[in-house]
């Protein structure tokens, strides 16, 4: 289970200071603004954040899936076992995307080709990356469908996507993503389009495959329930930055950033029958055409101080492996962290939320 993160598990993927921009008619969008993280073998890193915070762009740039133009990776490195892989190709010219790193997407219906059978689509991966013959690849495709717990896999392999339910399509996507035995599986909102019962089955499947193959998973989601269930480590993303990173327990039980606290307070929990009030986060995320000069969360933060307006907070270590970008953790800050959860909103002039 994911009780304690093994920090000694080998680092597979090391991303440092990733910056991605998009040119649009309205100007340049600074979608990812200096993101760093490590992915460990056999572990799950969850990147959690709201729509538009840059979590998908982060992993797409590692996979070389950013369309360019308009997208540009303007800074940073991504190393898979020490080899630079920006653009989905290692420095040696080896294609990483689809072989060493597999990916599944939110909407399996639109991610699959409606004019090809499921079996052929899975087989294609093997033909391209492994040079298998069609019949060889198709045989393996049926085995992969069986691994992802699809009943009657050989009959199903001959069917088209429209004949599959949403849950089965996501299973087929997973079969395709793990076809080449990737060491990392990127799952971009894999269960958002599914019912909770099917979500639960798919998450179980991902867990099993992870354990069997010592595969690392980068899980992108907005659902803290899914994070709690799956993650060893968590990165909380907001406006293109990681505001807090740590183990799942760090993030849930010693949240150190006001945004993390806010997200948790905005969701109902079912610990007992008492009714806690939901605390929405007022306002909306900043405009990434012109990111705020200071803390990205300044405009919505109930604890904002003058320092937060113009000075971007650096990462403060608040525990072993637990980092947060928030001035409240500066040694000279008079406010205590324990107050985070209770402090009333401090009015600060000149904020436009």
């Amino acid at each position, binding site marked *: 289970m*994911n009780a304690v993160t093994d920090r000694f598990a080998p680092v597979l993927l090391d991303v440092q200071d990733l910056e991605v921009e998009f040119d649009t008619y309205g100007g340049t969008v600074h979608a990812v603004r200096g993101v760093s993280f490590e992915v460990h073998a056999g572990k799950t890193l969850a990147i959690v954040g*709201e729509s538009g915070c840059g979590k998908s762009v982060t992993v797409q740039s590692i996979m070389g899936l950013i369309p360019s133009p308009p997208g540009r990776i303007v800074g940073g490195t991504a190393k898979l076992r020490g080899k630079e892989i920006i653009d989905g190709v290692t420095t040696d010219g080896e294609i990483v995307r689809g072989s060493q790193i597999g990916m599944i997407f939110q909407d399996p219906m639109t991610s699959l080709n409606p004019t090809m059978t499921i079996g052929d689509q899975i087989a294609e991966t093997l033909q391209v990356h492994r040079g298998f013959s069609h019949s060889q690849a198709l045989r393996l495709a049926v085995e992969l469908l069986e691994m992802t717990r699809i009943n009657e896999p050989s009959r199903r392999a001959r069917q088209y996507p429209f004949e599959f339910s949403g849950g089965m399509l996501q299973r087929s996507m997973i079969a395709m993503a793990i076809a080449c035995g990737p060491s990392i599986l990127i799952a971009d909102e894999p269960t958002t389009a599914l*019912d909770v*019962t099917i*979500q639960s089955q798919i998450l179980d499947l991902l867990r099993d495959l992870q354990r069997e193959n010592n595969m690392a998973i980068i899980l992108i989601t907005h659902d803290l329930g899914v994070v709690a269930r799956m993650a060893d480590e968590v990165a909380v993303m907001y406006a293109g930055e990681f505001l807090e990173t740590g183990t799942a327990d760090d993030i849930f039980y010693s949240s150190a950033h006001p945004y993390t606290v806010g997200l948790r307070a*905005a969701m109902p*929990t079912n610990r007992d029958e008492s009714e806690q009030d939901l605390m929405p986060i007022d306002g909306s995320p900043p405009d990434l055409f012109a990111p705020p000069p200071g803390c990205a969360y300044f405009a919505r933060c109930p604890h904002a101080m003058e320092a937060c307006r113009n000075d971007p907070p650096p990462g403060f270590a608040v525990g072993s492996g637990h980092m947060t970008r928030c001035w409240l953790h500066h040694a000279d800050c008079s406010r205590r962290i324990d107050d985070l959860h209770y402090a009333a909103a401090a009015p600060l002039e000149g904020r436009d939320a």
Partner: protein
Amino acid sequence: MTPLIEAEGLTKHFGLGRNQTVHAVDDVSLHIDQREIVGLVGESGSGKSTFGKTLLGLLDKTAGQVKYQGETLPQSYGPGDFQRHARTMQMIFQDPYSSLNPRMTVGEIVGEGLRLHTSLSGREVRDRVGDWLERVGLNAAHMARYPHEFSGGQRQRIGIARALIMSPEFVVCDEPISALDVSVQAQVVNLLGELKESMGLTMLFIAHDLSMVRYVSDRMAVMYLGSLIELGVSNNVFFHPKHPYTQMLVGSNPEPDPATERGRGRTAIRGEIPSPVNIQPGCRFANRCPKVMDVCRGTTPELKSVADPEGKEPDRLIACHLY
């Protein structure tokens, strides 16, 4: 007390031709009292939205009836019926993107009901629209803008203003928050809660997020494949589910708490919701149920009150042969 709205044996089938029928809603009876919020949960394809739409007359009823304050509503709505009931019953839709006409300004969208159903002057309509936009946390100046200029949460507020500007008594909220981000969901839920208090609204709250339904609603109704299988006080249904399906549904609801999730076993629920075409008699959940008995395959269980030894829960209804 007469319930505000009451469905009796409400049924909605869709014919597919060639003797195939989709049993979207089958014999559902449910009443909602004044100022009550009933949450309706179930997997996609369970008939939740169809039930909501049939209740409002947006879809014709195949069988059964709906009574509103004791008055039986027509089986099929004509233009006059909509004219009459638009003032008392409204709907808030799931998708804040496709449910707003992109070619109309927000002022036109929110004011359309008043223009069609009341004799208010243009200026009065504009004033009310402005009031309502502010009431839902937008700005009267937003009236001149088009839907694409708003975020998902703001659009959902526009949809709420459009429904509530008619001062309805009864509102069907069809997944009003599932397209929204977590922080915005709380904004919309709190807004609905405030408006419910200030306007004395009665609501059917359709959603698949069990935690949110428990939080929002007084009673919770669980649907599976077109039939109502469990109904009771929200906290009781959530914390002490009785129907095997409800137990599995609650069991697969993710909690934002790593310790709880670590203690959770594997998913008990197998398989997927079957096709609602040409349903055979017997319990609809029989083929996925871990506690299935012989009787389940042949006889359809009726929704009935379950004798509670302590008499604490007179209202719990369950459709299962185990009870």
